[in-house]
């Protein structure tokens, strides 16, 4: 009896000790600031006296009753969705091509795909502003073939281009990992049954990669919806996304409680969307792919 009790104890102690650093880290750097942000969002703010330590839902009412915030949330959701769709449309075929490449080329192109991540976000985004600006390369090229210059910089298009560029690796890598594990003869079987190469991809290969596409699009959506530097630099002062809005409330308006409220609402919305999407796709894929 006593032997089994003392044998049970180290089984509890060792895992707790091993996970202690990560747990402390998580509590200290995620849960605690999050809790403080939640509390902050219920405090009221006075432009003369600063943050009050009372508890009120007035911040939430302000945000939920104002058209301006809605339009920003809607833009955030829309741009994140468009970015995700573009990442799927470009990234999934890219992952397929990558998985069919031979030895030296595969690692070279993998590096090319990861490339954007190796460049600082500020440098990369300023690069895009130079390309998309009024006298930038894109408009120069359009002018060369006789097309009127277009306003690209400080539009939603510019934000989506910038986001899609940086998000591609987050789509390619999970999809590629899944494709690596597929049996290549399954695709060959589809060909022998009369499918064209394109049909074989659409009906046979990509459905099997559903779980990779799912995780890729979750990462891309979450990162896009909470992105800060790209909308800040390519969207200009006028086109706000959720993260830039929070930044403004904190550092320009100095209304921390309102900023915290927006941050919490965005966090919850993000969570709800991602969980719903995950359930929808994963359940279907699990049932089919096991």
């Amino acid at each position, binding site marked *: 009896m006593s032997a089994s009790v003392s044998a049970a104890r180290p089984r509890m102690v060792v895992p707790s000790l091993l996970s202690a650093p990560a747990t402390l880290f998580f509590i200290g750097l995620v849960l605690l600031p999050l809790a403080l942000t939640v509390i902050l969002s219920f405090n009221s703010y006075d432009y003369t006296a600063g943050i009050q330590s009372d508890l009120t839902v007035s911040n939430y009412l302000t945000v939920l009753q104002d058209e301006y915030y809605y339009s920003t949330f809607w833009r955030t959701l829309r741009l994140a969705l468009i970015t995700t769709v573009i990442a799927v449309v470009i990234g999934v075929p890219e992952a397929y091509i990558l998985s069919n490449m031979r030895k030296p080329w595969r690692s070279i192109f993998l590096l090319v795909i990861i490339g954007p991540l190796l460049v600082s976000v500020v440098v990369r985004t300023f690069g895009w502003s130079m390309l998309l600006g009024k006298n930038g390369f894109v408009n120069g090229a359009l002018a060369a073939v006789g097309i009127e210059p277009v306003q690209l910089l400080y539009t939603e298009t510019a934000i989506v281009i910038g986001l899609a560029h940086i998000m591609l690796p987050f789509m390619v890598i999970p999809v590629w990992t899944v494709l690596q594990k597929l049996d290549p003869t399954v695709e*060959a*079987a589809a060909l*022998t049954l009369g*499918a064209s190469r394109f049909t074989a991809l659409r009906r046979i290969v990509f459905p099997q990669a559903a779980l990779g596409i799912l995780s890729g699009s979750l990462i891309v959506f979450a990162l896009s919806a909470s992105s800060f530097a790209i909308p800040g630099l390519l969207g200009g002062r006028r086109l706000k996304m959720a993260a830039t809005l929070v930044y403004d409330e904190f550092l320009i308006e100095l209304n921390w409680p309102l900023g915290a409220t927006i941050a919490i609402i965005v966090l919850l919305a993000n969570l709800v969307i991602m969980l719903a999407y995950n359930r929808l796709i994963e359940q279907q894929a699990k049932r089919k792919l*096991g």
Partner: protein
Amino acid sequence: MSFLSVRNVSKYYGPVAAVDSFGLDVEKGEFISLLGPSGCGKTTTLQMVAGLVRPSAGTIMMGERDITHLPPPQRELGVVFQSYALFPHMTVAENVSFGLEMRKVAKAERDRRVKDILALVHLLALADRYPREMSGGQRQRVAIARALVINPPVLLLDEPLSNLDAQLREEMQFELRRIQQVVGITTIMVTHDQSEALSISDRVVVMEQGRITQVDTPYELYERPRNPFISSFVGKSNFLAATAEHHAGGATISIGNTGITFQANDRPKGKHVSVFIRPEKLRLTAPSEGQIEGTVTSRYFMGNQWLVSAKTPAGTLSVAVQNFGAPPPPIGEKVGLVWRNDDCRVLAAGAAE
């Protein structure tokens, strides 16, 4: 004009010939096995017929039609892969239906044909299962149904039974033959299992290092293998070193160290030859009554038979003794060995191993 004709097809990977001048004419309704050890080029040959590998040289004719350079979808052949290659995200019925969808067959017609073919392979009850919910033998039958439902002129099977356990494999062999006979489809099967090839084929093609070394009916192949490799690869064999005296009517063969001589109809080249005889063609008798005397060195019980090895002046010989009831002589006992000289094959020595 034969139904399917493979003419001088070769496949080179760099300077290495995976398949070297493969030529074979297949008649309609025939069941052909490509038999050989791994790496002999049999699967590459099948893949070239299927259109999955491009031949370096040669032509493949389907009747009057040259299909050498057609892509797989246009060959319309039925292919069963070693891994079965079922579509994991589709049910059995969807898997089987896929080829018909690609041919734009109407839904009602499609359902009817899927049902018919699933009934043929005894899987009608499992039509709504996913492949991962099925056993190996069932997946195998789905793969066959999926290949057959499009009514291909030729069915290509790549080691179709190698992933099944021994019992199931034997069952599926006969099932495969039954289905092939019912449908009457021309079939080419790749296998490394000689018993599989012998039991269900009309003709067996033996390949070694990319080349065909013999094409024969299973019985002829077993009884008259053309070289020592085939005789040991297809079934078991005893080899005895011997010398040949050639004369007008044939050759007089003397088995080394024994003084045994006999007249052979085979006319192998050269003076040094090897005589081979199957273990089941040898019999054990009392020491004095045999053509040759030996001592039992090992004795293995296989259930339906015993495999006895006896050391003789001509070398160690294996004898297969039917399990009639009484066990054969124990190890160390003197025995005599008897055979009919007509059962001996004489082959040129050299490659004999």
